[in-house]
């Protein structure tokens, strides 16, 4: 067992590494390190950096998957730029893929075919690039869910949450731009879809279309423009945001799951050097390896089968990559609502699901930390994560959101569902129209109930220990089940969370009848706060635990007592037994 390293609290602000007085050792080690060290105190920065603690939990690696796949994207993307021609000029195909011989197509598509069939390793790199793009967005999504459900977005990490929301939304743009570049049938169909979205913006839609496409769709400009967006603009923004994200991560330090020895003021985990370096480095190679294997073994985006974009063609199974699927789904199931006002057409059927839904998702995500803090009135810093059951409303809200997203997502593949599972397309549509509203409500109620049951079970465990499954016959003939006491460490983990009281409506006047000024708690806020706190199972008080130990003197094994050898709760040594 590794010894978890406890990195001690340090005042984050301003405490610069001590200015190095040229020590004897430093001067003696007059090598290049010493030279640099005299100017920039690398060794003390490194010493601290190397001892940075990383909590050991798999869910902390989801963000790393995103980071590593981004690196893969940069590397493979540079390879692709060497041969890709971002031009919509028409050429006749003369490359080595026989089934396209002589077909007119854009230079962009022809160069994608040549990368696939004539450039050595080109197809492999294209497939790796595309799988990495899928994994990049997927890993960001999964990482975000982890952060959400554990409450890691709370103070002081709201800014990093916002950066994360930015990364996710811009990641979608990047992926979409890349998907459009090869100018194959699906690219063009996707662009046509976006063209529709742009045009559905009330009043200015048509102008916006001409602005984006440099004239009517498809025009000659959109691929060169998207190319610039895809390889320069957005990667640049992504890189900047990723750097800011990592910098804030280092500054705030990692959060950690609750447990003995885990405090708001420390981080329990493996030190960066050597253990975590090995683990993270190893994981980098694993991510790389898995992505390459996927690129080598699983076909993705076979553009030579789709053919060049031709506005007269559309194929069954025209879908965007998965991360745009929820918008596609919303568009597929919305009724055909349009209004005509004077000479303008208001295409609600496209505007609401397209622009509206994406706006709703990302605005909602961005605002959530602030809304929650406003409701709970929680102004404290949090470095210990919530166990999702201890924030039942948040958890239920998250699951409801996932349900809505998932249902929209499934609707985006309604035709595939229909053929693969022998269902009727119309029946799926009708079902989904209802389910996207009802499903999240059901998911909310069910999840909240599950959370509260889990809380109740935790309370039981703390008060009465874990059930041993051994039935004991008492002298008077009755039966009781022996309960094994849980360890002190577990008891700590189960009871460490704080229970914030609901906010009260502030009095409008103080005790002298003078109207209060300054911040007040409104009726709405108090009501929301009460709702948020309502129903939670109170954790046992110290008194209750003590009482539970006594209430049946004849059941000696009922009491909660420190397990042998655990000693003090906060002595960091023993890891909690609850993983």
């Amino acid at each position, binding site marked *: 067992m590794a010894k978890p390293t406890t990195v001690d609290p340090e005042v984050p602000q301003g405490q610069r590494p001590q200015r190095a007085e040229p020590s004897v050792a430093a001067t003696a080690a007059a090598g290049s390190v010493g030279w640099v060290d005299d100017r920039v105190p690398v060794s003390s920065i490194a010493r601290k950096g190397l001892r940075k603690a990383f909590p050991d939990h*798999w869910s902390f*690696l989801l963000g790393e998957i995103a980071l590593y796949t981004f690196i893969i994207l940069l590397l493979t993307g540079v390879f692709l730029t060497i041969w890709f021609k971002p031009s919509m000029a028409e050429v006749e195909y003369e490359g080595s893929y026989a089934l396209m011989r002589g077909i007119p197509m854009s230079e962009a598509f022809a160069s994608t075919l040549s990368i696939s069939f004539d450039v050595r390793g080109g197809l492999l790199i294209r497939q790796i690039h595309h799988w990495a793009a899928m994994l990049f967005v997927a*890993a960001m999504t999964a990482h975000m869910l982890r952060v959400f459900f554990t409450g890691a977005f709370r103070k002081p990490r709201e800014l990093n949450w916002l950066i994360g929301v930015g990364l996710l939304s811009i990641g979608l743009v990047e992926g979409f731009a890349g998907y459009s570049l090869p100018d194959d049938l699906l690219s063009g169909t996707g662009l046509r879809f976006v063209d529709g979205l742009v045009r559905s913006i009330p009043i200015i839609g048509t102008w916006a279309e001409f602005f984006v496409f440099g004239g009517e769709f498809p025009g000659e400009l959109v691929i060169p423009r998207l190319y610039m967006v895809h390889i320069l603009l957005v990667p640049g923004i992504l890189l900047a945001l990723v750097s800011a994200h990592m910098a804030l991560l280092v500054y705030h330090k990692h959060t950690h799951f609750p447990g003995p020895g885990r405090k708001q003021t420390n981080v329990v985990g493996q030190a960066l050097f*050597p253990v975590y370096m090995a683990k993270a480095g190893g994981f980098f190679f694993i991510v790389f390896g898995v992505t390459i294997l996927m690129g080598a073994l699983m076909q993705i985006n076979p553009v030579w089968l789709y053919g060049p974009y031709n506005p007269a063609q559309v194929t069954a199974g025209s879908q965007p990559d998965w991360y745009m699927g929820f918008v596609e789904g919303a568009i597929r199931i919305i009724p055909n609502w349009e209004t005509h006002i004077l000479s303008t057409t208001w295409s609600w059927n496209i505007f609401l699901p397209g622009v509206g839904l994406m706006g709703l998702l990302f605005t909602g995500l961005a605002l959530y930390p602030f809304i929650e803090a406003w409701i709970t009135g929680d102004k404290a810093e949090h470095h210990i994560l919530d166990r999702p059951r201890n924030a039942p409303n948040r958890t239920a809200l998250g699951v409801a959101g996932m349900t809505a997203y998932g249902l929209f997502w499934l609707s985006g593949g309604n035709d595939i569902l229909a053929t693969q599972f022998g269902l009727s397309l119309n029946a799926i549509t009708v079902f989904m129209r209802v389910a996207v509203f009802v499903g999240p409500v059901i998911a909310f109620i069910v999840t909240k109930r599950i959370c509260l049951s889990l809380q109740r079970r935790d309370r039981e465990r703390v008060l009465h220990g874990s059930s041993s499954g051994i039935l004991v016959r008492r002298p008077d003939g009755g039966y009781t089940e022996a309960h094994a006491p849980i360890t002190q460490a577990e008891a700590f983990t189960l009871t460490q969370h704080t229970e914030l009281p609901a906010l009260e409506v502030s009095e409008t006047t103080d005790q002298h009848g003078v109207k209060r000024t300054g911040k007040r708690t409104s009726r709405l806020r108090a009501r929301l706060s009460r709702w948020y706190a309502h129903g939670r199972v109170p954790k046992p008080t110290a008194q209750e635990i003590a009482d539970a130990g006594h209430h049946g003197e004849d059941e000696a094994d009922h009491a909660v007592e420190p397990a042998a050898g655990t000693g003090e709760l906060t002595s960091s040594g023993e890891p909690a037994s609850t993983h």
Partner: protein
Amino acid sequence: MRSLTSRRHHKAARLLLVAVALLVTGGIYAVVSPAASVAAPTPEETIARGKELFAVSCASCHGLNGEGLASQGAPSLVGVGAAAVDFQMRTGRMPMANPLVQAPGKTNPFTPEEIAAISLYVASLGDGPAIPDPDQYDPSGLSPEEVAVGGDLFRTNCSACHNFQGSGGALPNGKVAPPLLDAEPIDIHEAMRTGPGEMPVFADQAIPDKDVKAMIAYLDQVHAEPSAGLSLGGLGPVSEGFWAWVVGIGGLVLFAMWITKKAARR
């Protein structure tokens, strides 16, 4: 999957088909006449035999004279032509077991002669597309450019329902455009000329036989070519997204669990 398909599209398979087709169109004669002394059935005799078979197997839905019975939802067969009957029966769609939304393709229990007889009978009810000759659908001997044009025609006319490589697709009201991986050249020709179910008719004037052959050749070759790794069903981005989550994220999470569990040895 791939290797099976390619075997199905093996040259020998094609020859075999041509042989079968010849048998159907030209030669009930050889099989039906057990003795040389019995004269070959005249067309009239074949039609009469077809009418008998029709009365037994088809009339319950299509009416005794092929006029169609609204109560069964079965259309009139006047003018559908021999090709429609040949297609519907060879692919096992007709006779329908019970009027479902869409006749499922199943193995056909009829002999080629019986099908030929019924076809001839139905053709006698009114003019319609005839069963094509092999040289109308045999895709061999086309240049790569011609085959590529066939691909373009397929994407323009068929992919909206049958998907870009003929993996099939969904249509409204529980109907489906079936996958074309197993479709024989003659099936494709007949389906285009007769427009089964929801499928439109692609008549000779719209897509001449030459182009039909190119499309058949394209489908043959595209199904025979290797895919760049597992084809994941050839369904497009939905299955790709599914596998990205299952294999990619799923697999990496398992690795993440393993690597965080792993303790450092000191």
